[in-house]
């Protein structure tokens, strides 16, 4: 107490700290130096050659030039919304004028993609099928993959499973109650959109996506055990491949008849009724099944690694 030097030493840092001068600054400097060191190490390891240095500026310049070129080309295109643009040619005219007579669908887009251009849609359904196959190859947990895993990975997996079981037991009450009320309506709306694809906006793609989203909601709210009761891997395989094969069987008749003609032998019925427009209704249902299964398959493969 009596030693003034000691007293000063004791007091100075405190005063300096209160005034916000030295004490803090040194610590900050040390922290900054540490950060710099860490950053430098990362920089050296990542940007190890000259390519990375010039990559970003060159990218920005090239992109800007590219976009400027694209916008410059837009000057030459016909203006927006005019009647006699070259895109509105005789093909569109034929689809609109003779679409109802040829296909029997009042929704011209549905008539187009499922009758005039049905091969296009078949190819696209195959793309979805192939994508889900690829995701199954990448993410599905089967016996072979379990053998390959190391001890550490097994432990992590077991921990994750335990957490999921806990989550299953204590599901969010609000989500559970709300989805219990909403989910049937979502599924019903999806089915409505699929079945009315040829007489109103919608069709297999949007309806199937809505059904898939409804199934995802149910699975998220009530746990995957509830959806597994009616939707397991066997059902998934049967529905997807069955729907794809039936689509192909219905639409490849023009392969066998050997021409581009549209006659199917199925009566078109009264335009505007649900049972009308020949093959478009079953084709819509098949596409809807494929899309719904694919969407739900993506979800369950991504979250659990199995369907």
């Amino acid at each position, binding site marked *: 107490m009596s030693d003034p030097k000691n007293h000063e030493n004791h007091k100075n840092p405190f005063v300096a700290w209160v005034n916000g001068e030295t004490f803090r600054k040194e610590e900050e400097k040390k922290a900054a130096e540490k950060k710099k060191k860490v950053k430098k190490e990362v920089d050296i390891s990542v940007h190890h050659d000259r390519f*990375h240095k010039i990559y970003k500026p060159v990218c920005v310049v090239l992109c800007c030039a590219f976009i400027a070129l694209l*916008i410059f080309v837009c000057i030459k*295109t016909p203006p*927006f919304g005019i009647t006699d*643009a070259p895109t*509105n040619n005789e093909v*569109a005219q034929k689809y*609109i004028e003779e679409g109802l007579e040829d296909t029997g669908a*009042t929704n011209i887009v549905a008539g187009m993609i499922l009758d005039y251009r049905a091969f296009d849609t078949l190819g696209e359904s195959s793309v979805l099928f192939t994508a889900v196959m690829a995701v199954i190859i*990448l993410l599905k947990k089967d016996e072979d993959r379990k053998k390959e895993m190391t001890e550490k990975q097994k432990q992590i997996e077991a921990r994750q499973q335990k957490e999921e079981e806990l989550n299953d037991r204590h599901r969010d009450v609000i989500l559970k109650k709300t989805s219990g009320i909403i989910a049937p309506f979502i599924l019903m709306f999806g089915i409505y959109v699929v079945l009315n694809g040829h007489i109103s906006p919608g069709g297999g793609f949007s309806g199937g996506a809505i059904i898939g989203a409804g199934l995802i909601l149910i699975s998220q709210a009530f746990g995957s055990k509830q959806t597994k009761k009616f939707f397991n891997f066997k059902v998934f395989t049967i529905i997807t491949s069955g729907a794809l094969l039936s689509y192909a069987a219905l639409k490849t008749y023009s392969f066998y008849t050997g021409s581009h003609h549209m006659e199917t032998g199925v009566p078109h019925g009264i335009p505007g009724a649900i049972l009308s427009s020949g093959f478009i209704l079953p084709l819509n249902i098949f596409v809807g099944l494929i899309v719904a299964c694919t969407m739900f398959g993506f979800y369950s493969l991504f979250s659990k690694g199995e369907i």
Partner: protein
Amino acid sequence: MDFFLNHFYEIASMILFGVGFMGLLLHNNLIKKAVGLNIMDTAIYLFLAQRGFITGRVAPIMGSNLEASVEEYVNPIPAGLVLTGIVVSVSVTAFFLALIQMLHKKYHTLNLDEILLKAKQEKEKKKALEESEDA
């Protein structure tokens, strides 16, 4: 000004394409790359769909009036093309995300540079091991 009034959809879709392209090229994060790819997709769809629009006409769905004339409806072809495109883009995104998940499982990072570096190191380690075995 006239140019802008006639082509604003095209300009917007080109800018969106550029933004998505920049995101795809400049970001190291793989999820950001997937987002950039999605934005590029939708930009192309916007460009395609606005080509078929004609001012003052309605969607090609017949209501009570079943006698179709070309002067009533917009062009249905771009809508059909884009409809197939949207669903293909979601499958492409799903495949991309599955690959990202597998990469993260192996390398524990989303940074593409780090992944490449780790893969390179792994390769060198393997090579060294083989050489030592040969010796």
